[in-house]
């Protein structure tokens, strides 16, 4: 096993563990931070594949920007849920039983996840994968830029329309009643 493989396995393990904690953390701020760790591990995997550009973008966009938005959403929600106080009360056996059948933490989602992993593992094992996809395995930032503004310039612009729609949507869905005519008076 090469060093790169070890790094890949270690990062994947961190990523999976973090992702598991995202789902099972009772305190939602913890979930958000585990998500950051999961993103960072993915960025690390990009680095082991010599995709430096993707590494930086993954950190900037996911670990930075997306996390910021998630934290905003959390900060604007009900404080009782943040501290994990909406959880099933009681202690000992009752709590444990309720956890087992919980839709978030229980056996059923765990079984689905394990089953899915087993199926995909067997698929991956059974397929004689072709080698690297054609093209430079580690394209430089320059090459990515050229492709993005050359071959893929139409999807690039399409993506900006998607972002425009998201922006318009965010405003439409959150603008306060009457906010259209005059802005809210500030203290």
């Amino acid at each position: 096993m090469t060093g790169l493989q070890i790094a890949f396995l270690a990062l994947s393990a961190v990523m999976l563990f973090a992702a598991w904690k995202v789902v099972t953390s009772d305190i939602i701020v913890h979930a958000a931070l585990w998500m950051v760790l999961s993103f960072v591990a993915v960025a690390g995997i990009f680095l082991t594949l010599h995709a430096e550009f993707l590494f930086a973008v993954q950190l900037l966009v996911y670990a930075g920007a997306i996390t910021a938005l998630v934290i905003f959403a959390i900060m604007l929600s009900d404080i009782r849920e943040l501290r994990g106080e909406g959880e099933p009360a009681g202690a000992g056996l009752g709590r444990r039983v309720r956890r087992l059948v919980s839709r978030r933490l229980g056996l059923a989602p765990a079984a689905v996840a394990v089953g899915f992993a087993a199926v995909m593992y067997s698929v991956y094992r059974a397929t004689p994968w072709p080698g690297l996809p054609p093209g430079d395995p580690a394209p430089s930032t320059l090459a990515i830029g050229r492709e993005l503004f050359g071959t893929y310039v139409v999807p690039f612009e399409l993506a900006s329309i998607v972002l425009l729609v998201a922006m318009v949507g965010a405003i439409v869905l959150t603008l306060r009643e009457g906010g259209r005519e005059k802005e809210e008076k500030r203290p």
Partner: protein
Amino acid sequence: MPTLPIVGEVDTAVLVAQLIFLLPELILAVTGTVIVAISPLLRGRERPLVFVAATGVLAAFAGLGPSVGGAGEVLARMLVLDGTSTFFRPVFMLGALIVIGLSPDYLARRQVPAGEFYALVLFATVGIMLMASTHELLMLYLGLELASISGYVLAGMLRSDARSQEASIKLFLIGAMGSAVLLFGLSLVYGITGSTNLVEIGHALTGGAAATFRPALLAATMFLVAGFGFKMAAVPFHMYVPDAYEGAPTPVAAFLSVGLEGAAFAAAIRVFVTGLGIIQPNWAAVFAVLALATMTLGNVTALLQQNVKRMMAYSSIAQAGYILVGLAVATDRGISAMLYYVLAYTVMNLGAWAALIYLSHNGQSEELADFAGLGRRAPLVAWALTFCFLSLIGIPPTAGFFGKFLLFSAAVDAGLFWLAVAMAVNSVISLGYYWNVVRAMFMEEPATEEPLKASPVFGLGFTLAVLGTLLIGLGAAPFFRLVSAAVVTLP
């Protein structure tokens, strides 16, 4: 003019020259942007925007000119000009035009921000048109997201209505999951073939490659079927549809049911027939089962509904089941029948939804009881609705009849007798719930005799839908030729 540089492997001058093929989408996107920009300046008097939006769509129709008759992939292989895209692009624009015409009265009554509504409908139309006219998976996915995100926002536009918020959230959560599943499938396909172009993918899988990579290919197919299933509202991926359509503003539900679903079918044809055609027996069988489950469950559940909006949601599911028969058959005849049915479904379904929009902008709700005596209060609407229902059931000489007939004969032709029989049985079942509405309209006493009103714009939109249903049925021959020609160019 200065010479344009060559970026990467693309000659920018050629790219710019080929933008003419993208004219309809460009016009729609620009119109949408202009509407968003000017609507705050109108300070609530947003009614005239309907004309801006409609003009934009009509201009986009005109913009199709250079693309008609073109063949091949343009714009660095991002856009494909063939019979299928020539067919679907105007169909989707027609759907958008009808929805825009039906909306203004409803928007005014329910205080939906009209500017953003029209803009998002136009943007979503860009998305669904591109989904149907590309061989590039990246474009397909971006088009899908453009249409879906617009849909999430449109569904939540009744700000004070909790059900509308619920519809938006449900569409968003399920839609995001559907997209994720679809992407996972696409990533497997890319991993096997090393290409994101469907034609290239098709080539890469020939010559024994499909057999070599069979396990991964089957897994990919599974994810793709599920991903598209969510967008097509196919059983068992349909759970969110009734709640979403019931809660969403009625014009939005109408638009989603024809636009997004239609685009999902168009994109599925491209992905499965063009890209994965070589393993057709595998996915066709899955689609056959899905078709049966979808039409049966949709029709049976629709029978139990008291709310007509919900009933229409289940009816949409059932119709999706009929369309799926085309993919289950997967012969040229099946695909061309499918194209025809999508066209027929667009006009007849919008015609039926129009009656619901009509009721709610007159302050009525969408319960079955509200339809009582509609035949006396608004005879024209009642008859038009009845006509659209006849088409949805599949009674001659409507568009729906020919659509079903084509699908039916394609299924028989391909030896899928059981599916053909299921279609026939389902059509009979569907008679039940459509009849409930018709009976309420013509045989029950209205609660009040107060006449109902509609603006001329609404009338135009409604007329377009009903007339379309009639014309596509009565003059079916040219449309047959159109869809047959469309399918010949599929590789």
